[in-house]
């Protein structure tokens, strides 16, 4: 089976890779580009551990074929921090101890950032519904929700100050 050549923008950089036609974007990120932050929990779109932002909208990268990424913009967990400066969502996850085993965390952080990019002032209910597609088996979600609410407050302050 011939491999497909894909050129796509990943975390702001133009990247090229070869993939097989049935390969998922998640597998291409991990196996072809060595971006192993996105995780495979279920492979069926139920757990959200593989969440990435594709052309501005969050999707499960396990449900995207790698070939579909041709000419698109992909943002992954590796692109959330700016160098060594953590994104407020990441910082607040640490401060709130919003993780235990950490397997779901990349997906939660990407999804939370996607929410705050669209809605800087979400209610707790909006946060919980937005994150319904991300499963965590450790925390019971409460600390995650608090971290996202804290990050939202900090981002609003930063914007007011700026």
């Amino acid at each position, binding site marked *: *089976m011939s491999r*497909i050549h894909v050129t796509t923008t990943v975390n702001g950089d133009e990247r090229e890779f070869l993939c*097989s*036609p*049935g*390969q*998922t974007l998640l597998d291409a990120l991990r196996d072809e580009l060595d971006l192993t932050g996105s995780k495979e929990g279920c*492979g*069926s*779109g*139920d757990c*959200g551990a593989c*969440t990435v932002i*594709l052309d501005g*909208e*969050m*999707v*499960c990268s*396990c*449900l*995207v*074929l790698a*070939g*579909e990424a*041709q000419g698109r913009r992909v943002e992954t967990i590796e692109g959330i921090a700016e160098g060594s400066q953590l994104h407020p969502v990441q910082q607040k996850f640490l401060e709130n101890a919003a993780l235990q085993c950490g397997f779901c965390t990349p997906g939660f952080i990407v*999804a939370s950032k996607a929410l705050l990019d669209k809605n800087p002032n979400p209610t707790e209910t909006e946060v919980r*519904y*937005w994150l*319904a*597609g*991300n499963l965590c088996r450790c925390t019971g979600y409460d600390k995650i929700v608090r971290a996202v609410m804290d990050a939202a407050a900090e981002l609003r302050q930063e914007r007011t100050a700026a």
Partner: protein
Amino acid sequence: MPSPAYHAPDTVKQATDLLAANKGARPLAGGTDLIVQMQSGRSAPAAIVDLKRIAALKEIREEAGYFAIGAAVPCTSLKNNKALAAEWPGVVEAANLIGSVQVRNRATMAGNLCNASPAADSVPALVAAGATAIVAGASGEREVPVEQIPTGPGRTSLADGEFVTEIRIPRQQKGSSDAYLRSIPRTEMDIAVVGAGASLTIDASGTCTSARIAIGAVAPTVLLVEDAGKALVGSKLDDGAVAKAMEAVSTACNPIDDKRGTIAYRKAMAGVLAKRVIQIARERAGGN
């Protein structure tokens, strides 16, 4: 999973040619069902024809008589079309009950229809709305009422090489609205145990002049319950008329017993949900 060939055509014609030339090829819209089926080995298409590079299939057009929703329009985009969301709130809400935000950013109504799950959330709302599907194939296009697309779980009336290019929903008349509700044991990320959609038109005197009731997850396909609509038309949606519609709905059910619900529960709940969607559609229609 075995690797099929991947094609991303720019036009509907190219897509129908590719599907005609590759026996065992499958069209790919959002992929939230097809890719899962490929991963699990339930489906092994020889080729994938990705519809998302066809510009015409990625837009919602507002025509004089209908909305045309392209087969590659994800469910979340429906909410951004203000006219559609105002005229068919039930359809837009139903499509946005499917899966998670991640899934709805990919999943399409045409895909939900053609996946032919009896529990597809957007389908009862589309059936109640009187929607049609435009089906393209090697011999041209045909327009089919959406309820005639699924023929059983995972099976459709589409011929080899045919695919749905768009869903058409009529422009809403004055005094009309719709609603969809489903019953699930959770609040999100679940498959309907029972679903019901209603579309009503009510005149100035409060008399119901047209009604379509559709139910999901209670038979091998989504059902249009014509007797329920008939029970409502000509009435003022009084308790007696609604009770008759509920009875027609429960009678039409032909559900299975499974881990998510028993036959008796599904039959009873279908009636209850029908009553609730009739009430919601009625309240909404009053404001239009």
